[in-house]
């Protein structure tokens, strides 16, 4: 049968990692994605040390100065160095979007696992609750919640986490639904394993590849959301060098000084593209059907 076809050839025993890298090579965008993310991580950690100026150091004599040797990205309306502000601001974006994603992944995983495995009324209730969250446009819902809670770093993280739980839970649940009918799960049930053992040992390891891909996609959406909230003034508050906030403030000065807008917006775009490439690459590597392997 065709099924056994590929299998017989795989026999020699190529290790899992060994198979990763040739695949990676075929998709250079994945490398580019990883490189961009690594660069941003580096900046987030060492940003304040590399930055030529302090992010809030004002120089009113040099307001809206175009890019020059002293200020390579130019200065903003208070004469602050945009380059330094972007370097330092990367920390905010990555931590806020990252923690929000982590929160969503953690609770989404839990809900998805139990909901998918238990089924029945519990599943029905959880999934309908998720549908309610999904039925409201995310930005609108985030704004409502932040108006109520008041804008702050922690609240943005909570909101991002909360908004993306349903997406993660849905993906995990669909994988669990498929896995729980597999015969290795039935074999475990037949030898009397507890539900927790089955979830943790038999099912969870097989959910992880899909979860990794979903998490990377959520991360890129989180960056957007965090930037959007910043832009609307609901995110991290001034004088923090938040990229979204910088874009928002730059609107006023756009006709006089376009660089004030271009550089933070470009930073957001670059990061999102990088994460997108990485998530694409992860999907090709981890999920079957993503790659056409012949031979």
């Amino acid at each position, binding site marked *: *049968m*065709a*099924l*056994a*076809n590929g*299998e*017989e*050839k*795989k*026999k*020699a*025993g*190529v290790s*899992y990692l060994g198979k990763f890298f*040739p695949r990676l090579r*075929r998709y250079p965008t994945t490398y580019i994605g990883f490189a961009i993310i690594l660069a941003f991580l580096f900046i987030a950690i060492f940003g304040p040390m590399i930055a030529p100026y302090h992010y809030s150091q004002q120089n009113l004599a040099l307001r809206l100065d175009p890019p020059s040797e002293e200020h390579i990205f130019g200065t903003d309306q208070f004469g602050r160095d945009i380059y330094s502000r972007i370097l330092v601001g990367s920390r905010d974006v990555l931590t806020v979007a990252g923690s929000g994603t982590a929160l969503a992944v953690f609770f989404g995983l839990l809900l998805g696992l139990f909901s998918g495995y238990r089924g029945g009324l519990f599943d029905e209730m959880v999934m309908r609750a998720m549908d309610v969250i999904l039925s409201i446009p995310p930005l609108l819902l985030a704004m409502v919640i932040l108006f109520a809670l008041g804008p702050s770093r922690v609240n943005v993280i909570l909101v991002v986490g909360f908004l993306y739980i349903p997406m993660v839970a849905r993906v995990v649940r669909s994988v669990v639904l498929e896995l729980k009918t*597999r*015969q*290795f799960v*039935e*074999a*475990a*049930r*037949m*030898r*009397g*394993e507890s539900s927790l053992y089955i979830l943790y*040992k*038999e099912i969870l*390891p*097989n959910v992880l590849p899909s979860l990794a891909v979903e998490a990377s996609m959520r991360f890129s959406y989180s960056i957007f959301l965090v930037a959007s909230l910043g832009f609307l003034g609901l995110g991290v508050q001034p004088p923090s060098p938040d990229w979204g906030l910088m874009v928002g403030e730059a609107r006023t000065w756009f006709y006089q000084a376009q660089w004030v807008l271009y550089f933070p917006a470009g930073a957001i775009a670059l990061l999102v593209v990088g994460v997108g490439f990485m998530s694409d690459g992860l999907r090709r590597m981890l999920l079957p059907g993503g790659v056409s392997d*012949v*031979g």
Partner: protein
Amino acid sequence: MSDNGAVLDVKNVTVTYETDKGPLHTVRNVSLKIAPGEIYGLVGESGSGKTTLARAVVRYLPANGKITSGSIKLSDTDLYQLPREEVRKIWGSRVTMVHQDPNASINPSMLIGDQIAEMARIHLGMNKKQARDRAIEMLTRVRMPDPESVAKRYAHQLSGGMLQRVLIATAMSTNPEFMIMDEPTTALDVTTEAVILDLIHELMADYNTAILFITHNLGVVARLCDKIGVLYAGEIMEEGSIDEVFKKRLHPYTRGLLGCVPRVDASKKDISLSSIPGYIPRPDDLPDGCIFAPRCELVEDACEKERPPLKEIAENHFSACRRVDQLQEKIERKDELREHHEEELGDIVLEARNIKKYFPFTPGIGSLFGSKKAELKAVDDISVRMRSSFTMGIVGESGCGKTTLARCIAGIEEATSGEIELQGKLLAYSVKKRPHDTLKKIQMVFQNPDASLNPQHPAGDSVARPLILLRDMSRKEVREKVKELFKAVSLPEDYIKRLPHELSGGEKQRVAIARAFAADPALMICDEPISSLDVSVQASLMNLLTELQDSAGTSYLFISHDLSAVRHISDWIAVVYLGRLWEIGSAEDVFIPPYHPYTEALLSAIPIPDPEVKQDRIRLKGSVPSPLNIPSGCRFHTRCPRKYGKICEKEEPPWQDMEDGHRICCHIPLEELRELQGDGLLKKSSAGGGS
């Protein structure tokens, strides 16, 4: 027609795939000729390159596949030189194909009639009306009941056998010169398979199409084909007419393949199956000499030095073996005879009484409005009793309830009613409510080896878990026992650390068997454990199961739709149809008349890999009725070839007892059945060949 009259003339074709690791020559130097009206059977294990070869001869390869040398002629056309655009015009008009999976080959959102008509419109230039008539005509040709209405249906409204007929009708509608059939009956039940094979055979008389028939089933080749080519790792090992090849078997590989097929006239008590050791080599790792040498039992030093060419041994009979002379001397099949075990009745292990399993079923949109619930009667009153060291085979078409019965006994599915008694103790229906010490006594080996092991757990961990959980062993004991179990299922010790994706299908199934035996079960349920594997792997697994049973005394409930396998491995056989038992008895008795008309039909459908065996042709009409709507009286009367009269429609048939516990549930009196069925179905025209 070309000068030699062949429709397809392929010479020295080599197919190369470009891969990351460099070029792979998956098919090498293959030549074949097919005359008009001839059916050429191409057989080989999976991975031997059958499908690649078939696609190459019509230039239908994936983008990274290329024909790197050779010549292909379709009648007068040189297919190899033809530009791509021209080749596309040939596909569908002069060359057509029937695929393995009928469900995937038919567009689910298009009417059956329109799909056949599409071929006629595009390739024969017909207008809509003509094409429609052509579609109906083709459906009539493939003996479709009520073709007018079938043409107006969608794929999901037809059964698998009917879909396969539609595909054949589509492929035949342009009157092609050459047709490829890629395992067209593999996905079907034996009974349906027999009907389709008959149909192909009959159609051949009307059309002059040359057919390349790909299959892994030697029985199908023996029944249908005129010529056979045995492909191994991309090269032809033996080729010739059906009679010649099956009689003389002038290549050790052909001999090995035929030796793997269980015979319907012998069981595990008499012989163990021969199997071919080792694996088919990968195309990037071929031996220097004869490619079959590493697995051959006749191998000598010279075999490993040079690759022997395909030589003509007798007229039109080719073999690629250097040692053909030795093979010609001894033709007899070398079955290892086993010591005949005297049967002694063991203790009763399992007694299942009146098991019923009904699934609630509300069709379609009705469920929204709370419409009346129907019941799907998957298992309807089945009783079986099993003793220790005993194998009960359960056979029947798909959808007859075999697997549901097994799952009820295992407790994965909760029975609706009935009693399950294990070693004298009543069991709860659900596995969750069964006590720990009974859990280990029933184990299961599943059908699909890919799904039965956790892909993230090393093989050894899968086997170790029941030891820890059910037998409370210490870590050191577990390690020892895992080694012992791997040895028992003939897997090398370093496999303990391998992940399932590093194992072949047969090896995964061995790990699954080791896992089942780890619990030291009294009863092991084998749900089609071998049906997705190659014949040589099937044979070695059946031998393994037999050996393990001899040493451990475990009972097997062996479910399969393959009657020859069941005949080989079982002591008793139960025949199931629509959730009921119809015949039960010892394996020998069930295979000789008188038998139930359903058993008779199943037996006559078995493809037997011996062209000299003449089987009576008893064919079942239609497909299994839905278990939602079970026919009145005898459930089999709608399809029964020996329907007795009105009584079959009105009254449930009685059980009739014969000697040795052999029982049949039928209205026809035993004497009459005996008379109708004569000496049985399996007759040999002469006493030559195998036995």
